[in-house]
């Protein structure tokens, strides 16, 4: 969430800055993974920055999002502290989940970020449920579910939207159509890849936007939010975008070179930066300053995370329940026991 909306000059520059931050964050993540400083499965957001930033720019502090396995971008865009994100990735106690979640589960409940999610499609029902809370509270807030186009075939996503539509909930279902699910192109696993056609079926508005254009995304999501707040229920927004990295770091599943080139030519950050400079809303020098500031901030964030302590092993037994967990202590004691 950035402070001022994209209709203002400040807002646009802030959005650009946010996109740059997402990318620089992920570049560092990629390096840290390659260097063995990040364990686990790591899916990078590079290429899709306009979607996260455009969508979350519409949100207020009482709104909520759910995210996916590819969640870092959503997190940074929601304003999560990069240092605590790196700490989570690097399995440190200062991480958002104190090392229990890792890349696929970063969450910051205070920021309205209900978690990355390792199971494709599972965030959509959860956002829908947040929508029920909002509807009952009547607090003029919305829930937004991010998910990839691969998730469109998941039964849960279908169920979530049916539910949101039937119950008139203030929810936005945002499809990040980067055209690949792991190695599978959308055309191989869908007969129709115009996912906005589902809008009619569910009886809710659906719109496809240029996911490389942060303003386009922002406007569509703003409209959806407006409708939700007016009691008109949920909407679907399909953002056409692309990821530049492999499905997950370290995986040998290259994307077709030509396709990659096509999308890189339309890079969201480059395009928007050029546009702002052209429109006189930003100078090349100012942009460099922004970049430098972000680089410095993120370098410091990495350093802080790196210097943090890992969680104490015993913490593994905590947070299963909100109360002491007798069975866990029982088994733990048995496992650790030297003598009968």
């Amino acid at each position: 969430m950035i402070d001022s909306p994209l209709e203002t000059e400040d807002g646009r520059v802030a959005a650009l800055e946010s996109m740059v931050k997402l990318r620089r964050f992920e570049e560092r993540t990629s390096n840290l993974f390659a260097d063995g400083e990040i364990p686990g499965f790591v899916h990078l957001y590079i290429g899709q920055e306009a979607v996260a930033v455009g969508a979350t720019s519409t949100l207020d502090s009482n709104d909520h999002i759910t995210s996916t396995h590819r969640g870092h971008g959503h997190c940074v865009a929601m304003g999560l502290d990069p240092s605590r994100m790196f700490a989570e990735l690097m399995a440190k106690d200062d991480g958002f989940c104190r090392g229990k979640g890792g890349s696929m589960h970063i969450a910051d409940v205070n920021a309205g970020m209900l978690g990355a999610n390792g199971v494709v499609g599972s965030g959509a029902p959860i956002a829908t449920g947040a929508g029920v809370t909002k509807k009952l509270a009547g607090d003029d807030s919305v829930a937004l579910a991010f998910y990839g186009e691969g998730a469109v075939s998941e039964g849960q996503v279908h169920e979530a939207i049916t539910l949101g539509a039937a119950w008139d909930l203030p929810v936005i279902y945002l499809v990040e159509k980067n055209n690949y699910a792991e190695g599978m192109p959308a055309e191989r696993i869908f007969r129709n890849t115009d996912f906005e056609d589902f809008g009619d079926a569910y009886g809710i508005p659906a719109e496809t936007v240029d996911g490389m254009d942060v303003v386009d995304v922002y406007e569509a999501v703003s409209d959806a939010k407006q409708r939700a707040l007016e009691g008109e229920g949920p909407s679907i927004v399909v953002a056409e975008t692309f990821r530049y990295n492999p499905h997950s770091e370290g995986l040998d599943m290259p994307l077709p070179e030509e396709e990659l080139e096509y999308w890189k030519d339309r890079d969201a950050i480059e395009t928007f930066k050029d546009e702002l400079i052209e429109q006189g809303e930003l100078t090349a020098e100012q942009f460099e300053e922004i970049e430098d500031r972000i680089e410095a901030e993120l370098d410091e964030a990495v350093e802080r995370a790196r210097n943090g302590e890992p969680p104490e092993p015993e913490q593994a037994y905590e947070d299963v329940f909100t109360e002491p967990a007798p069975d866990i202590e029982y088994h733990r004691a048995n496992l650790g026991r030297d003598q009968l």
Partner: protein
Amino acid sequence: MSQTITQTETISLREAINQALREELERDDDVVIWGEDVGESGHVSNITEGLYDDFGAERVRDAPLAENGFVGAGVGAAATGLRPVVDIMYADFFGVACEQMLNQMTKMHYMFGGQLTVPLVVRASEGAGLSAAAQHSKTTHTFLSHMTGSKVVTPGTPAAAKGLMKSAIRSDDPVFFLENKRTYTMKDEVPTDEDFTVPIGEASVERAGEDVTVVATQAFVGDSLELAEQLEGDVSVEVIDPRSLYPLDHETIAESVKKTGRLVVADESPLSYGTHAEIISRVNETAFYYLDKPPQRVGWPDTPVPSAPTLENEVMPGRDELQRAIERIA
């Protein structure tokens, strides 16, 4: 029951749950209920009777047939401040809602390092005996107890049902609440005090005895009590209802086995990898040297549930099997 009970009334287990829901809906505006036909048109097992009329469509909500979707919505609602009670009707439909149970509801508090709580109750009715065949008769409480990250309760009496439902709704942890179909009409004394609750994680010695410990769940609680009366004089049977399978109060069970030296576990789950095995293993770990005879299991012999009464009666474990098991080691 360890509480001092002042006043009681005799009601069925079904009514006990309905009362608990009603009292909690009244007590706390954050409590909401949803599921298929729980609202306007009336619940197939009448559990939610009258609640729609008194609390309205926003708090007692009919859902589309979309179990993973609406259990997941329960997770999201619980994570953002409500205390939903979600009804998946027959426990067999656990299959269609499994993902949100297995990977979200029971894992979120932990995965997020304790940042949020998921005060969600998922209810279902379990068990055979209605000739409803393989897809409407299963028990799922063993699955759920093995899942990690949730509490699992299986009341055997109306009082336990009421008191545990109230505790489940008030719990900040996710809870699975499993009702055995055959117990719905069971009637017994239930405290009328609105503050009556049964703590999750405490077994109840429903009957004291000296010779054999019977750990019985759900409908087997009533069966065991009747059988114990009948055997009185020959065998003195102690009957324990664990009431919650997770946490499992093995201390109370071990205590009893230390006295009797003999254990029978009676539960409707399929025997292989069933609830019985866990109870036996805990007793092996906590009272091994007290066991005079091999622990006995009474449960479903691993077939799917057939529909024809002749077949269902054959494989459905009941009083005969329990009696044989007791007499085998008494």
